[in-house]
């Protein structure tokens, strides 16, 4: 994968799904590959199961921590309606990597309606049942974000080396949960 001047990632999901851990892993890996890196995140009440989006930018020269609208190279969504919410960050070439997982909320559209809208997205798009795979194979839905990260790295949707991510995980993830996360990350390798 050829690295252009910068690489912009939006991760969207729901508070509690581990978005900030993913952000930390990716940014540490980018630093290990000698990129400049900046990120932005939100804390507080929104983390209580509300919509959350985090921004990660790395490349030769990065000033702003925020991705401009229409400038995401990759949108990694941990839930299907949250993929739609951040749609304005995409342009026609933005790659969508979406956890095929629906978490309803008060007043939400139903799963079918959301899926139709997802279907209407003409972008390069990977719908992966990460939550289900992680629940079945690892008995831990919580690592579905890391599973998707593995998917993105091994399918070369992120211009970072698998080894950098694995090293970053050692730095970011507590020892107790490291093995589980490494397993989740490597699931797509085979």
């Amino acid at each position: 994968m050829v690295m252009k001047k910068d690489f912009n990632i939006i991760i969207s999901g729901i508070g509690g799904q581990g978005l900030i851990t993913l952000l930390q892993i990716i940014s540490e890996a980018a630093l290990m590959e000698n990129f400049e890196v900046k990120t932005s995140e939100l804390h507080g009440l929104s983390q209580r199961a509300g919509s959350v989006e985090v921004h990660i930018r790395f490349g030769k020269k990065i000033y702003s921590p925020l991705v401009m609208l229409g400038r995401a190279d990759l949108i990694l969504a941990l839930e299907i309606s949250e993929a739609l919410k951040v749609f304005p960050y995409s342009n026609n070439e933005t790659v969508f990597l979406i956890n095929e997982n629906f978490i309803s909320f008060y007043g939400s559209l139903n799963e079918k309606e959301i899926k139709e809208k997802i279907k209407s997205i003409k972008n390069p798009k990977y719908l992966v049942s990460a939550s289900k795979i992680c629940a079945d194979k690892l008995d831990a839905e919580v690592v579905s974000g890391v599973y998707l990260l593995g998917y993105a790295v091994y399918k070369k949707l992120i211009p970072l080396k698998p080894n950098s991510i694995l090293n970053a995980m050692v730095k970011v993830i507590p020892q107790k949960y490291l093995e589980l996360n490494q397993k989740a990350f490597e699931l797509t390798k085979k």
Partner: protein
Amino acid sequence: MKKQILLGNEAIVWAALEAGVNFVSTYPGTPASEIGNLFYKISKNYGVYFEFSANEKVALEAAIGASFSDLKCLVAMKSFGLNVCSDSLLPLCYTGTKGPMVIVVGDDPSCWSSAQSEENTRGYAYLAHIPILEPSDPCEAKEFTKLAFEISEKFKIPVIVRTTTRVAHQRMPVIIEPERISKKLKKTGEFVKDPKRFAATSFYVLEMKEKLLEKIERIRKFAEKSSLNKVFYLKKEGGKKNYNKVGVITSSVSYLYLKEALEELKIELPILKLGFFYPLPENKIKSFIKNLKRVLVIEELEPFLEKEIKILAKEVNPEINIFGKDVLPVVGELKTEMVILAINKLLDKKIKVQKLLKNQNLKFEIPNRFPRFCPGCPHAMVLAAVKKIVPKETIFGGDIGCYMIAGFPPYSLQDYLLAMGSSLGVAHGIKKATNQKVIAFIGDSTFFHAGLPALINVVFNKSNPLIIVMDNGITAMTGHQPNPGEEVKIEEIIKACGIKNIKVIDPINIEEMEQTIKEFLQKEEVSVIISRRLCALLEKKRKKE
């Protein structure tokens, strides 16, 4: 020495440690909470005294005591915390500090994590005559915090480092030097009596004010020479269009959006980046604008800089065309996209920005996902009981904490919400003004923070709201910081106030909760239910550990 990816808040902690801080106090609040969280974790390793204070006023006062005893202090809070402690902050600027003191204040433009208001802390500079520095990213947050300690030490004045959400919660690689921080024992200060210096009595205040204003002028001279206020002149680079009769003045995170916008537009402009918001380096600004035809002021929220610059321009360049809030919003945070449009207007629409900004997909119309209670949350149990048992026309007073979710559907149990502790203060007013029933919700940490004086007022002036203290044993919303509930029993305070209708209930006992609410709502005198059950998220966390 090592390079580590840090949040702006974490960079501030390392700056304080490298500067040799002795005493740190804080009350948690987004976007400043991680400063306290990190100190809580590591302060002991570096011989630093750290406390989560009961509120920001006592946090500042604790630091004042330490500063008067010649210790180096840091206080951290979110924007509204400065309102709470402002009563002591203003006289502190009069007395000045002895040991240096830095106050970190986190603003939240766009109110990502703030109810209440979109506060602009810069306004306090005019009220208190306190120096304010504005970093744009974690590296600067570290550099500026260190310099703030130096300014405080040199001029014996507290200094504010003002961040915003996009600075405090921005991450980037920062160089830290843990090996250079001495792992010393806790320093013992000494309070040397000097009432003429430390007592802002009416005999001295005017004299003190004059001295403070003189001090600010000395700091202004310092600011004129400081590298924190930087002028970037045009470099003669190939391929980029130069404009030398127009310029930009900016500060804080807006500087990053400006740099990004110039990259996008492939142009260069002379830039004055201000690290000092107060006092402003007026001569530096005057010489920057003297020969310009147009200048754009890029700042978030109210146009404080723009107004100052308009005054300065009158002296040196009355013909200059000053752009600011006519091309940028006053409400909400800025973004690179907005800065691109503003620059385009500054350059008289000579550049084509449509292509830059139009290449984006349109929005899907989908409903908002409101935050909601975690599984097993005790607040949800209380609200379910209230929703079931209490007549709809009852007034529900909200306060600051996770239980603000009460305002969202399906609960919709929040008829007013203002500030920490105000559910009780306002409930009293409604009870005095009407014949309606009022239930005021308040959390344990908020009760200690600002609920107490309001409770005492309810008793003293005799009104009868039903107060429900949602005691989940922790300051939950900001990430589980300990609070005075560890040492002080809320029911004992309430009994000591002479309140007779009081019951402590585990909200899992639904029937008891419902019965008590029903009964207490009919009381002639104030009544209090303490709903006590540990935060479900914390319980889960503790089990994992």
